[in-house]
């Protein structure tokens, strides 16, 4: 009898869990729903990419990277860490805007921002785990040795702490999905503290990623090496967050429309314009800051060199032009134009981070531009991890209340 009861309960739990995981579908239905063109492409990438990731761990980094002593950091970190972290400032920027500065109307985008940020950091760590020589020692800066004068020590601590903070910030969505009202209330009680912790940690590690290069003055091209580099990284991460939210929300509204509610969809165009305006202002400020950097070190003469021209392409072609497109979209009130500008700005952020970490680094070495072409296996690994990133993002948005509100919890105010 007792046994039966347990059996019942476990059966109930099983069916409840499967209901959650399969979104109310039966197995055959769910499997059928998975056959889409996007998923087929993703599956092909994973079939090729996962074995290559396995090779890296079986045969060492030499198997998939250049294994260069002159170029210790390649695309894995250039893309995954230096490119990924500024685009993951979404959590801190949206939460700060909403909870601290009281931009209440942005509520539909706050959770999306937090999730984008959380997953971005999580995957930055994934790239790091692939790139570290001995990834199983990743906790060493916390427990084994303290290189307190190292900027990377700060980055390690902050990324680890901030990942936890972002998980806590996102936890209400998970708890709503699991219908755990009481725990959810506890989770929301720490929101403000977590948001302020997020500001502190983000200010420091976003800029610290730039400060990492301060230690290598002779190696990074003087146009990118500047004592302002921490400020550049921080300032650009803020607009990176805004444009990232614009693009991610647009993609959600397009491809995950059935997971969104009208609260999200109806306000999206208006909020996109608002975010675009904020991003454009940040970008003009950033542009001026970059020029101040050139002036501060009196590097004007370098602008006529080959690298100087590339520098101008970066700050004019990939900052000024997208900022102008954003401005145009805002002035015309056309969210579509803002979205194009936002996507362009994201590419600009990646161009800048890849310039600092790869293109302008070691610029004096002979054959430099040839050396920085990544090997195909490293590219495939990046593509694979990016695909997994997107799949997990979609998995979460499909199930948890991210771009919709859970009716049961709808009325509960977010602290304001």
């Amino acid at each position, binding site marked *: 009898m007792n046994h039966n009861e347990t059996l019942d309960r476990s059966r109930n739990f099983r069916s409840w869990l499967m209901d959650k995981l399969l979104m109310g579908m039966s197995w055959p239905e769910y499997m059928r729903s998975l056959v889409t063109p996007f998923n087929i492409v993703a599956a092909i990438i994973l079939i090729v990419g996962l074995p290559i990731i396995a090779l890296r761990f079986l045969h060492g980094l030499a198997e998939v990277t250049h294994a260069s002593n002159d170029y*210790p950091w390649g695309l894995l970190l250039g893309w995954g860490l230096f490119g990924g972290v500024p685009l993951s400032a979404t959590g801190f920027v949206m939460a700060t805007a909403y909870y601290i500065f009281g931009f209440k109307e942005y509520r539909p985008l706050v959770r999306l921002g937090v999730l984008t940020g959380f997953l971005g950091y999580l995957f930055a760590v994934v790239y790091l785990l692939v790139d570290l020589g001995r990834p199983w020692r990743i906790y060493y800066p916390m427990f084994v040795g303290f290189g307190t004068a*190292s900027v990377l020590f700060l980055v390690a601590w902050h990324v680890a702490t901030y990942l936890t903070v972002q998980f806590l910030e996102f936890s209400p969505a998970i708890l709503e999905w699991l219908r755990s009202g009481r725990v959810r209330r506890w989770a929301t009680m720490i929101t403000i503290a977590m948001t302020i912790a997020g500001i502190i940690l983000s*200010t420091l590690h976003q800029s610290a990623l730039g400060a990492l290069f301060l230690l290598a003055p002779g190696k990074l091209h003087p146009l990118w090496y500047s004592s302002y580099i921490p400020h550049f990284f921080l300032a650009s991460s803020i607009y990176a967050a805004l444009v990232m939210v614009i693009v991610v929300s647009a993609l959600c509204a397009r491809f995950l429309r059935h997971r969104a509610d009208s609260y999200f969809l109806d306000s999206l165009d208006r909020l996109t314009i608002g975010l675009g305006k904020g991003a454009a202002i940040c970008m003009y400020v950033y542009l001026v800051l970059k020029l101040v950097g050139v002036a501060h070190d009196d590097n004007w003469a370098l602008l006529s060199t080959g690298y100087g021209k590339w520098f101008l392409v970066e700050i004019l072609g990939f900052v000024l032009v997208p900022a102008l497109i954003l401005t145009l979209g805002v002035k015309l009130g056309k969210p579509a134009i803002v979205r194009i500008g936002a996507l362009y700005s994201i590419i600009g952020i990646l161009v800048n981070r890849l310039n600092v970490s790869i293109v302008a680094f070691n610029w004096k070495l002979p054959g430099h531009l040839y050396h920085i072409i990544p090997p195909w296996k490293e590219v495939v690994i990046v593509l694979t991890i990016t695909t997994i990133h997107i799949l997990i993002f979609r998995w979460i948005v499909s199930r948890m209340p991210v771009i919709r509100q859970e009716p049961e919890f709808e009325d509960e105010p977010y602290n304001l």
Partner: protein
Amino acid sequence: MSKEVKEKDPILKEPFSRRDFLKTLSIATGSLIVGSAGSASAYRKIKGYRNSYGMLVDLTLCVGCRSCERACNEVNNLPKPDTPFDDATVFERLRRPTAKAYTVVNRYEIEGSGPVYRKIQCNHCNEPACFSACPIHAYTKTPEGAVLYDENRCFGCRYCMIACPFYIPAYDYESALRPRIMKCIFCYPRIKQNRIPACAEACPTGTLTFGRREDLLKLARRRILRNPSRYIDHIYGEHEAGGTSWLYISGVPFKDIGFPEDIPDEPLITQVKGFLSAVPVVFTVWPALFGMCYAAVKHRYKGKREETSRKEGKDEPQ
């Protein structure tokens, strides 16, 4: 323990040990906040270990015999080289130290002065960038001068390789389970046994002179002074990156034989000083600033809400 060593060892007169200082700091690093605040003060003017050893490399004397390479390879039990040590074809391309070779000799064809040979290995900076870069404190600057690396503390981020201005640390990328940094250790075990580094012992031409850094500086100055036509007036390593244990004098400009020329004279950690000192400020000022901001906004909304309608029961968290 280190105090005892200091008393026994005559060269350890320097009262201030960087290692002890950082160790104390690390113990104090209980929390994230303290840790970061600590980083701001983790550097100070360290004059280096005044009685440390160094090596003077007189490039005008080197004939490129690569005896130093061979001796280094044997003493450190490194794998056999791809091309034998007496094969001069290695000079056809420029090499750098790798996981299989702590030191290499390169040849430069200089107009008017024939071939110039340059030995490359870790310069053992007085205040090393690799040491400052390492988040796990895997590097040590010993009072004897050697910069040592402890693979047991390394997780393989390779930031030391990014930071080194001389392109020295090499990584053992081939290994899946035990990849590590490989670089010259200034024959630390031999120095401890009162023997000189293997490369200096093997050098048949007198290119390498081992001794106290201070004495070597005087020696280098004397050589330049006595023979100003033979040398250019620069001791590479006296000031570069805050000074290095290895010092070089040359008959041709250093930039013509591949020495990095745009290295600041201060230790590289000074470049990061400003950033690190901002850390405690952010930790203390931000909570106050943004907390106040939150309070102000909340206060305004509360006022507004009370005006419009009175919702019951729901007390606000925090």
